[in-house]
């Protein structure tokens, strides 16, 4: 693989430019599907960053990206193992080797040493980078905030307690990257910012990263067989695990105008390039359970790369956002060339990993209604492990009541069928009736007709059926004002 990249000192068309250790690196001849981890370890032999799983689940490969957002540099931990090298273009890369200044350790490194936060040490560089991003982010975190920041880093030795201690201890050791250094980096990033489409070709395989939605639309039309790359948190695994060769990749990540999350009148609009992190705050503000769902289903590394639109367009039956968006009556704005159409999410999924998207068409935006006083929403994610696990069952429900009677009810489930699915028979059995335990009990059996889960390594079909019923009961309990405690880890403890 060392022959897959060459470096040039001068600007060359089709080169990837990023900042590493204060220096602009410019790579040509980049294999578009080479991961940042493969480049670091295989080409640079910069071996501090480790490979633990090559699927974005263990965090041993965590690096931090610096990117310009509204003129300022923000630092984001990501998994290098499923990050394609060309997506570094225009960004700064920080690895564990970047942190030491002269003979001084960074406070998070020093705190880890002091708190005995490493044993075998293999996961440690990844923890260092997650803690680095957390530390540079600002205030002393709560334990819940630390748990969240470290949810994507697995340690098999320590039991985490000393690492969590170190996360706080670092603040007592003082020293942040000076504003001046951030300013230097910002101007460096501006100097490599690209105005036009990044276009790479290697061994007949092509990679495009357009800057505008129009350019994206044009590329999609020109390459109808292309794979669209958003955060790569799933596509990355097609390469590292399924060993697929992707002929044409079109990345949406650099389309700034699609990275926005905005509230326009009665709707929240989420562009195709908006990551789960970008959307988190707004969605959590309107729908706290949706915020918690997003927090739990992906670690910070995944949320910083993965997109809302990607989680929908991917059409996985076990994605967690689709049920929530179905329950909230969201829609997808699809675009081919200059033509747009808006499809309710209800009609978007048509079969196992199949959607209504036509060749050359892409999902440009997700639209969902803002919160309304009359509508109550809850989302439940049930998985073996609480954080960073794929759901056995995800249930998302919304309801509007009219004097104690159900005026409108949307019950959506993930993990219960070959697509994210509404339980329409059950909805029909409840709508118009009083919102009571008795109504729900009587309607529960309808779920069996609506849903057809399988047994697999995550759960048995029987458990999935049972949980699907119980989640609906729980929803009724939580929205009927009884006040019973129903959650072992209330979202309200929050982050």
């Amino acid at each position, binding site marked *: 693989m060392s022959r897959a990249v060459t470096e040039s000192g001068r600007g060359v068309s089709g080169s990837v430019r990023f900042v590493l250790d204060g220096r602009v690196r410019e790579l040509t001849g980049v294999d578009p599907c080479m991961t940042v981890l493969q480049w670091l370890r295989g080409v640079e032999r910069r071996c501090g960053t480790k490979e633990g799983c090559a699927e974005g689940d263990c965090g041993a490969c965590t690096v931090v990206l610096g990117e310009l957002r509204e003129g300022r540099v923000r630092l984001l931990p990501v998994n290098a193992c499923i990050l394609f090298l060309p997506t570094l273009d225009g960004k700064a890369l920080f690895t564990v080797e970047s942190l030491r200044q002269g003979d*001084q350790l960074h406070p998070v490194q020093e705190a880890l040493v002091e708190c*005995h936060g*490493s044993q*075998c*040490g293999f996961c440690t560089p990844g923890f260092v980078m997650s803690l680095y991003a957390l530390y540079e982010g600002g205030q002393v975190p709560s334990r819940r905030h630390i748990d969240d920041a470290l949810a994507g880093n697995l340690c098999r030795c320590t*039991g985490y307690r000393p690492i969590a201690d170190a996360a706080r201890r670092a603040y007592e050791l003082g020293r942040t990257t000076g504003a001046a250094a951030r300013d230097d980096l910002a101007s460096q990033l501006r100097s490599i910012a690209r105005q036009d489409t990044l276009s790479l070709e290697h061994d007949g395989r092509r990679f495009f990263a357009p800057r505008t939605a129009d350019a994206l639309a044009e590329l999609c039309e020109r390459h109808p067989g292309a794979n669209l790359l958003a955060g790569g948190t799933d596509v990355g695994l097609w390469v590292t695990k399924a060993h697929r060769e992707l002929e044409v990749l079109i990345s949406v990540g650099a389309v700034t105008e699609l990275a926005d999350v905005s509230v326009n009148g009665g709707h929240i609009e989420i562009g195709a390039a908006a990551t789960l992190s970008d959307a988190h705050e707004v969605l959590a503000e309107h729908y706290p359970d949706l915020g918690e769902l997003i927090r739990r289903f992906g670690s910070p590394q995944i949320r910083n790369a993965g997109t809302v639109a990607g989680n929908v367009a991917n059409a996985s039956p076990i994605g967690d956002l689709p049920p929530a968006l179905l329950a909230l009556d969201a829609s997808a704005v699809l675009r081919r060339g200059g033509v747009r159409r808006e499809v309710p999410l209800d009609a978007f999924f048509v079969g196992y990993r199949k959607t209504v998207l036509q060749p050359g068409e892409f999902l440009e935006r997700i639209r969902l209604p803002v919160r309304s006083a009359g509508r109550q929403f809850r989302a439940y994610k049930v*998985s073996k492990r609480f*954080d960073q696990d794929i759901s056995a069952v995800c249930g998302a429900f919304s309801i509007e009541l009219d004097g104690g009677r159900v005026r409108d009810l949307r019950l959506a489930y993930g993990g219960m069928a070959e697509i994210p699915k509404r339980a329409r028979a059950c909805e029909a059995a409840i709508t118009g009736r009083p919102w009571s335990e008795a109504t729900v*009990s009587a309607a529960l059996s309808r779920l069996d007709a609506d849903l057809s889960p399988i047994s697999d390594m995550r759960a048995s079909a029987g458990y999935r059926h049972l*949980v699907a019923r119980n989640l609906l009961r729980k929803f009724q309990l939580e929205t009927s004002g009884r006040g019973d405690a129903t959650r072992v880890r209330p979202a309200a403890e929050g982050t």
Partner: protein
Amino acid sequence: MRRRVGSSKANRRGLPRREGGRRSQRIAPSPGPPTRWGSGDQDPAGAVHAPIAHDSAVGHVTGEARYVDDLPEPRDLLHAYVRLSDRAHARVTRLDVGPAAAAPGVAAVMAARDLPASNDVGPVLPGDPIFADGVVEYWGQSLFAVAAESAELARKAAHLAVVEYEDLPAILTVEEALARGSFVLPTQVMLRGDPEAALARAPRRLQGRLTMGGQEHFYLEGQVAMAVPREGGDMLVYSSTQNPSEVQRLVAEVLGVAHSAVVAEVRRLGGGFGGKETQPALFACIAALLAWRTGRPVKLRLDRDDDMIITGKRHDFVADYDVGFDGEGRIRALDLTLASRCGISPDLSGPVNDRAMMHADNAYYLPHVTITSHRCKTNTVSNTAFRGFGGPQGMMAIELVLDEIARHLGRDPLEVRQRNLYGGRGRNHTPYGMEVEDDVSGMVAELAHGADYAARREAIARFNAGSVWLKRGIALTPVKFGIAFTATAMNQAGALVHVFTDGSVHLNHGGTEMGQGLFVKVAQVVADELGVGLGSVKVTATSTDKVPNTPPTAASSGSDLNGKAAQVAARAIRSRLARCAAEHLGGSPEQVVFGGGKVRLGKRALDFAEVARLAHQSRVSLSATGFYRTPKIQWDKKRYRGRPFLYFACGAAVSEVEIDTLTGEYRVRRVDILHDCGDSLNPAIDRGQVEGGFVQGMGWLTTEELWWDEAGRLGTHAPSTYKIPTCGDVPEDFRVTLRRTRSREPTVHRSKAVGEPPLMLAISVFHALRDAIAAVGGEGQSPRLDAPATPERVLLSVEELRARFDGPSADRSARP
């Protein structure tokens, strides 16, 4: 000769001394001298019993600590890939590797027929083929290997080979194996007294069954080896192994060369937990075979999924019990049958199952007992060592028995546990006849008091009475774990110490560093003996050409064995230096004192380095080996009688949980641990072992579920599907106390082993979950719960108990 080693408060904390005003730790510039705790005046004294940081801590946090895959790669390095079987049991009717050999970049392909000597890496008994020879016996067994210019080319080439099978019937579960009489080793029985008669006489009697899942090690660094051919057919193998001597022996055997022609080296492992005790040999041997064939260095690093599919795991067990007891819950007799899924070969299943039998008493006196152990042969990966080595499964069985007795009698499980603990006249011998001298009873009482068990149990009862959907539970369980390899011959160790004329010390021993802090502990012992700072003691990579014929670093024995061996070596050099110093300073060697980097005799003192130079000038050897063997132990394998262990390491834990009775989800709210590490060599390191072991055990019993499909294919072969605990699973309220005592036995500085025992403290989490589930039922009702207690198992247990409590006619939907 006692030495006092001066130590300020700062360095007793294990931290480099800070200079005034400096806020950050000084570390050596890179690349630079390999200082580990700072240098010169910042060097902490090598005091034993001090909480000193891991010797590689700075290397870990900077990424400079090297693992096998990080070593500089030789220019002509080849990369290997192993093609796996995709049948659980089948005859290989065709294996055509021609297309693979002809693929671009391929240097060699090797299958069973291409091997020069042996095709077996069985560690104790044969049965573990390197490459399947005609028949595949589990899904994921290695068929052949390819060496190519890159790992990618090797993988692509390997998948070009043509493999055809004719399926054979496969045995996948313990139940099938028992029904078919399929065993890797003969069934064993341990017997004391007359359990049959005592059971018949017992006032009360219960029977039941518990199934326990296995566990994937999930060391963060996967299996990896790099073999470098040397002149004359010799081979150097870098292997991530807990057992370099075994890698050396097996590589020699498969190459057909003398053991002396092979060197196995390991500086550190990115985690082992038993998963790198026997398993690495396969990969080291494949790398060495391909290196032998091509004459080029070969690296084999497994992808995580392949690693999880090919390598053995903790044994899953089925335990069936029949217990007789009195109205107070005191056990009169127990008939226990343990059956484990061993996979296709013996590997370490013999001693693993032996240890399960020896720990089926845990800390309880069993007057009349029979323990039957079936070692089932199945068409699944051969299960292997995992922290606890059968002990956890044995303990799970007896802890369930006690919990069931308590619930049957409507008593607090702690009361029944305490009533059955070892202690009192005639109640202090294990079923295999070893005397228990440890005061587990005192520890349990101390912890119950310290953790406020009684008050919390009441508070939980109040909570449960007022909470419809969420229920809480609490449990206290003890641990008594035997320390020594049960194979007596393995309880030996060697060390090698050199002193150089600048006073620096080179330490080597047979133990491997896998994160447990062995290197710093042994260095502390050596620094203490020589009276020098820890920074003067360099611990070097474990290598079979420095210290030979070593046991694996396993059985919690690392610091007990290697600490003692290194102490012997250091003492030999110290006594030579004492003679030199005495001659030079005038006096007798007995008056010489080593400490603080000085060698003193009365009021006169020399630098340690000066004495080393004097010794060298006087032609005195500055190098010594040390050897140690564990005293007192003896074991009659046939009768299951004797003293297999030098001592027991003990502890206890209280866990409190909360469950959601609608989904089965749960949270561990608080954990209190009291654990006996003797006079700990390094309390910071030991606390790390206690906490880390506990969380690993909690994973085994809660979220870590191995799942195979009906064809025998592992479905949970990556962290996306196999869920070890994350930071958020660890209770924020996590109180760990090390009980500082002195080991009764003459262990190194009276410390106790700590690697494995804390894992079993997590059994308290399982029983706290049972306690919470029990809250949905009535008095006298006991939940049925198997391990791991995933949310699914918890919910199904809740449902089953509710159905029992409500009776078949109750309208379940109308009540909580």
